[in-house]
Each structure stands twice: as C-alpha cells, then as structure tokens.
C-alpha cells in the first residue's frame, strides 16, 4: 500500500495560453512594423491591437466556466463600447461611436438583462448587481449630454437607450425589488 500517487511530471496547462500570448504579440508587432514602413497617415495597426485586446478579454472571461451570464453582458458592454470608441478615434473622430454605436450597445444590454429577469425571476438575485451596473453605465451618455453639449451631437439614440434603461430598471424594481435590496445588502456589507 502506498500513501500517495507518484506525480512524476506536472502538465503545464498554461502552455496553450503562453503560445497564444506569443502569437498575439507577434501579430501586433508585425502590424506595427508594416504600418510604420508603408504609411503613417493613419495608424491602422492600433485597430488591430485594440481588436486583439478585445479578443483576449472575451476569451479569458468566457473560458471561466463559472461566469454568470449577466456579468458577461456587463463585460461585453464595456469592452465593445471601448473598442468602438477606439476605432472612432483612430479613424479620425467623427462621433459615431458615442452618438450611435454605444447607445445601441446599451439598448442590447438592457434588453438582454430584461429578458433574463423575465425568464428567471426566481433566480434574479444572481443578476441584480449586474442589472444595477448596466443601469448605471446606461445613463453615462445622457449625463455627458447634460454636462457637455458638444460631446453628443445627435442625442436621439442616447435618449432612446436611456429610456429603455430606465424602463428596464423600473421593471426589475417592480418584479424583483426585494431581491435587489437583498443583493445590495450582501454585496455592500461592511
């Protein structure tokens, strides 16, 4: 009888990740070199780098088996919004990201959370905190519009997305208000 199994070699489970990091780095470096050698009028390599970073955020978050679906919605909302803003700035800022893309992303996020709330009212406590984060994020464009009127030049999409966010929050409070209070108590306990 032996007390322990023989562990002669330990598998390096992070080898694939290390290879992927090296490939990403090489790809980004190649794009930077090609971009700088061919034309410096606009730095398209930055779009590639932003795309690689977005892919990494998505992959690393998705491979975690225990991720809450609502937290994925939050991460994707932030990541895609940042990506669109980056692309808009790299292409010579025209404001399409903040005026159109981000409000559409916010609408999709709110509708997704609303669907999650309706189909799983009993498990809503799992999503409550993410609902509140998305609601808070959703009103940022509207606040920006109120503070600096030159940031959002076409407020129609912002108005629609903020209205949807307010409606989603109201629906959630009506359907699962108690859960939201409990979740806040749990998450914010000192």
């Amino acid at each position, binding site marked *: 009888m032996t007390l*322990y199994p023989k*562990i002669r070699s*330990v598998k390096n489970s992070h080898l694939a990740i290390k290879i992927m990091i090296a490939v990403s780095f090489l790809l980004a470096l190649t794009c930077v070199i090609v971009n700088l050698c061919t034309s410096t009028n606009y730095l398209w390599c930055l779009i590639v780098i932003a795309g690689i970073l977005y892919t990494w955020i998505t992959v690393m978050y998705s491979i*975690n088996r225990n991720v809450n679906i609502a937290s994925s919605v939050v991460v994707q909302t932030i990541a895609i919004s940042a990506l669109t803003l980056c692309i808009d700035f790299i292409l010579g800022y025209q404001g399409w990201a903040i005026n159109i893309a981000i409000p559409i992303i916010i609408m999709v996020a709110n509708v997704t959370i609303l669907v999650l709330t309706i189909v799983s009212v009993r498990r809503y406590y799992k999503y409550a905190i993410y609902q509140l984060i998305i609601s808070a994020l959703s009103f940022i464009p509207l606040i920006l519009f109120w503070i600096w009127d030159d940031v959002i030049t076409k407020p129609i999409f912002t108005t629609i997305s903020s209205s949807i966010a307010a409606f989603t929050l109201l629906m959630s409070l009506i359907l699962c208000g108690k859960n939201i209070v409990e979740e806040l108590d*749990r998450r*914010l306990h*000192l």
Partner: protein
Amino acid sequence: MPETNNWRRLDNSAKIFPIASSKKYSSVFRLSAVLKEKINPSILKRAVDKVLVNLSSFKVKLKKGAFWYYFEENNKEIIVEEEKNYPCKYIEPSTNNDYLFKVTYWENKINLDIFHSLTDGNSGIIFLREIVYTYIEMAHPEDFAKKLRLERKLSNNTEDDYLKNYDKKSKGAKGSKRAYALKGKKLPLAAIGVNHVNINLKLLKEKAKEKNVTITQYLTAILIQAIYQSNYQKHRGKKPIKVCIPVDLRKYFKSETVNNFFSYIVVQADMNLKTLQSFDGLLKFVKEEFERLLTKEEISKTMSANVKLGNNAFIKSIPLFLKLVIVKLSYLEIRKHTTTTFSNIGRIGIIGEYQKYIDKFLMLIAPETVEKIKCSSCSFEDNLVFTFTSVLENTEVEEAFCKRLKEEGIEISIEGNGVHDIISEN
C-alpha cells in the same frame, strides 16, 4: 434542492485568507484518514453527500462583495475524485464546482483538503470524522444494521465567536521582527515533499513526562534544534528561529462555532544565546515560553488585536480591490516573521466500533515560498504522526528531527509521498 439566496459573512480570521491567497500561498490544509481497506469511490461520494446534508455550513461558495468576500449557499454536486496532485494545493473553485474543500481518495486513504477561510483544523476534523463514520457504515452495512449510530448532534453554528469574545479594551500585541528563513534549493515544478514520521505515542508520552513537558513542547524543542543543527548553523543564521503554534480558542472560550476560531503563539528562540544550544536548555526555554504565552490573557491580547484590525472602520470601508493589493503586499512582509509553523491537533477520538476499520489519521499544512517547511501532527490510538510538508529539495531538517527522536530512544518509522526519494534517486 431549490435555489436560495442564503449567505453569510466570513469570520474575522477567514476574511484574510481569500485576500492573501494565491497559487503560491494556498492557505489549504489537508486532513486524511487511512483505513484498513481500499476506498470505494461511489460509496465515498454517497457518504460525502449524506454528511453535507447535516453539515450544510460547508456547502458554500466564495463570492466577492464590494468590501469583503462572503459565503453563499452552493447547490452544485460535490466532486469526489482520485488523488492526482500534490497535497494542499490551491483549490481552484472553477474546477471544483465552487466548493472550498476537496475530497479525494488514494488506495486506503480519504483526503479532505480545506481552504482555511471555511474552517480551522478542529472543525475540519469533525467534518472528516463524519465522512469516515458514514463511509464505514455504508461500506459495512451488515456490521451496523442493528446498531446504527445515533444521529449525532452536529453543530452548524456559524457565529463569529471572535466578535463575541474579543476584548475591546485590550492593547495591541507588540510588533515583531523578521525571523530566520530556511535556506536551500526549492523543488522543481511546484512540487511538495511530504514526510510522515510515525512516532510511538507511548514512548513519546513517557519521554515528555520524564522531562516534565507536554508533547507539543517536546516536539517543538526537537524541531527548533533540528532547524538549528541542519540549516541555521550551515547558513550562519542571525535572526531568531520563530515557530508559530496555532491555538484552538475553544479551549479558552465557550464556543460551538464551526467557523475558524483559533489564534496562535510564536516561540522565538534566539539561537545565539548559549543557554539554548543544549537540548535541555532549549526544552526549558520552550516550556517557559509556552507557559508565558498560553494564558487566557496573552491569547486574548493577540486575538483582540487581530479582531480590532479587521473591525477597524477605515479598513472595513476600503474597497475589496484595494484590500487585495494592500493585504497581498503586507502579507509578503508578515510571512517573513516566522520560520515555520507547527500545528498539533492532538488525539482524534473515534467511537469504539469504528476504530477497527481505521489505521491512522494525517494532517498536512501547505508550505510556501517563505515558510518552506511546515509541520503538523495528530494522534490516533498508539501512534502520533508528525508530518513535514516541504518545498525544499533537501531533507536535512527532517533527518535531524528523526535522528534526535531516535537518540531519545523513541521508535519511529517514516513514510512519504516519494518526492524526496525521486530527488535522491536522481
């Protein structure tokens, strides 16, 4: 089981572990029961499921709040699998259905690896004992058909007894200085070497009685001397050898909690003092230190200082992401204040009819980059198992420890996980 939103706060000690832990500093301890028969995995799985119905306080997962972590009820299946890795490794919740303990088996042995946030060694033993009792009952229904063990009253009390018992007026304990850190080449590939020293308890008791000391005091003195002779002298150590001894607070305060409820004392031996260079002088010093530090007042002082820190309004209000950075950095320094840890959980009592199925119990604590060797012990019937877990390639401390025991006329035998055999084979 329907999904619920049950949750509870972490106790005062438990708060620190998820913040300070990492793959290199796992904060995991292992309790094992070696039976006299091969383990049947399907029976073990059923036994663990049954125990968890009664000990529901262990059925939790760790969740992040804005300021602190907290426990939430976990309704996922428990995973019971064959032992494949080194003991006391970091428990990755995502690969363990979010549970903070891991049940594995190997031949005749049932292992229970527990993340320290969940509980301490004493409550861990209650959990393991229940698993072992239930497993034996299920594996030998004929022996227990008539006389089924009465449903034992198992506590699921999860009160934070630190808060109940700390002294608000107590002045903080004195600050400590760095300790001697064991030197030597580390094992490759994050391996952990395990060496169990089986000690004849009767002879050990006689020897300790002869010297007028307790078993823990006697073993602590041998351990300090082993470190001094095998590592300290060779590397010309200057700082004191400090051994951290966890203390079960249930012996000093009334408590039924299954949460953590322990404190510690630190025996500091300045080996440059001539009086400590003889074994008898060292033993006398260790005995006096134990007697000085193991009083309710001294223990309360250490416990209260820690509780007051965790209860400080400013610390409480620091967001968790900042706590993670601050605590991890401060822990890099705090861990340098002890050379090693020695935890003796004492005798493990087992009901008569079950004893014939059990060979022994083992306890292991995770070593790490600073405290490269950790020691633990527990006893069952006439055998005390003193366990070294180490990340060092050499076994000089272990060898010096065993040599001393033999010189004292105490019978020992050694078993291990083969890591150090592989090193010496190469």
